[in-house]
């Protein structure tokens, strides 16, 4: 005689839906046994990774970064268009906090249609992309923008379209062509390998050379 699988077929879903089980599940030996097995399974899932704890200093790092981002934002509002709507707060797209507290970086973007800023990762041709990055504790820094993983739009730190201010780099560029745009921030204590235009290759080469790489949120222009 084959084993009754009604508990697996039906009982588990009923329990997840918060519905009562009918008398079959009490009377059927197979179903009672299955219930016990799944109680143990759920308990085991509940006990997974109980030992995992973040490092003791993580909260301090967050607070440090929040203060740093606040200072960056204050300076950015002066650097960028003064009349931009205040409601357009910066979107933090990517932040990497190294376990080495001496080095920290962030990369964020804002999108503008005319003077109106908006959130998100989708833009229309002609919209303006404004990037801001912070690289603390690195000797060499480069901010790059790629399109469709194959075309380098720019790579800079102090020349156009980049502008450097202390440990921050800003860049502003019009998104004139369709495609997926990807900003990348590279930080290193040694020279950063030059960009070839191929995003994957450039990032892997830079990482192999010891650079710290932050890949921003991609922006689709369509």
């Amino acid at each position, binding site marked *: 005689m084959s084993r009754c699988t009604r508990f697996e077929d039906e009982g588990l879903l009923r329990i997840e839906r918060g519905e009562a089980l009918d008398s079959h599940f009490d009377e059927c030996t197979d179903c009672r046994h299955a219930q016990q097995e*799944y109680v143990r399974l759920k308990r085991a899932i*509940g006990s997974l990774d109980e030992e995992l704890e973040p490092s003791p200093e993580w909260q301090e790092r967050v607070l440090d970064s929040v203060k740093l981002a606040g200072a960056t934002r204050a300076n950015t509002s002066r650097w960028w268009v003064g009349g931009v709507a205040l409601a357009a707060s910066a979107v933090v797209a990517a932040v990497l906090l190294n376990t080495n507290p001496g080095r920290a970086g962030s990369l964020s973007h804002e999108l503008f249609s005319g003077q109106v800023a908006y959130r998100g990762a989708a833009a229309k041709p002609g919209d303006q992309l404004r990037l801001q990055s912070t690289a603390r504790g690195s000797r060499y820094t480069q901010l790059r923008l790629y399109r469709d993983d194959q075309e380098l739009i720019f790579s800079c730190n102090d020349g156009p379209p980049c502008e450097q201010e202390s440990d921050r780099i800003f860049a502003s560029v019009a998104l004139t062509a369709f495609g997926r745009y990807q900003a990348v921030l590279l930080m290193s204590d040694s020279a950063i390998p030059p960009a070839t235009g191929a995003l994957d290759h450039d990032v892997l080469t830079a990482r192999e050379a010891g650079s710290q790489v932050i890949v921003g949120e991609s922006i689709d222009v369509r």
Partner: protein
Amino acid sequence: MWPLMPLDETAERAALQALDNNQSEHALRRLMQAYGTEIYRFCYSFMKNRSDAEDMLQLTFMQAYEALEGHSSKSSLRAWLYTIARNRCLDKLKAERRLQTRVAFVEEPPESPMESGDPVGDDQLVAALRNCLARVSTAVRTAVLLRFQRELSYPEMEAILQESAKTLQVRVSRALPELHRCLLRQGISL
């Protein structure tokens, strides 16, 4: 029953009160103390390594700080933090996949069948279960862990995962037999 991890109502109230008093940093501190560890473990379930999980944890709370003042008190801060963490982890995984397409997200560990009938200790069960969870999709793993590890309700999961409760209930109830069968293949009987 396994230990419950309920909503920390004291922390939620304290954080909301701090926000009312324009003390965002104080609110952030309360939330980090109350939910930091569980959000870290949640991030770990996505990232599968401690370093990335901690990066995502920090990023979650930084982004939360940016948006704290606009948070609606209608939803729990805890569920809102989970939503941010999920989105940040998925963004990170997408970026990693684009850059390392040849490397699978989950490196499938080899199955190591044990002798059927051996007494199974909790450590063996947990190790085998971790192995099995690594084999299911991210969507299934996340739903199962939110339900049984984080003890979230389906309405909370619905808000975090942006999928209907009914879909999640079906996904979880189908995942359990799948995990059970995976354990059996490794010689683990419950």
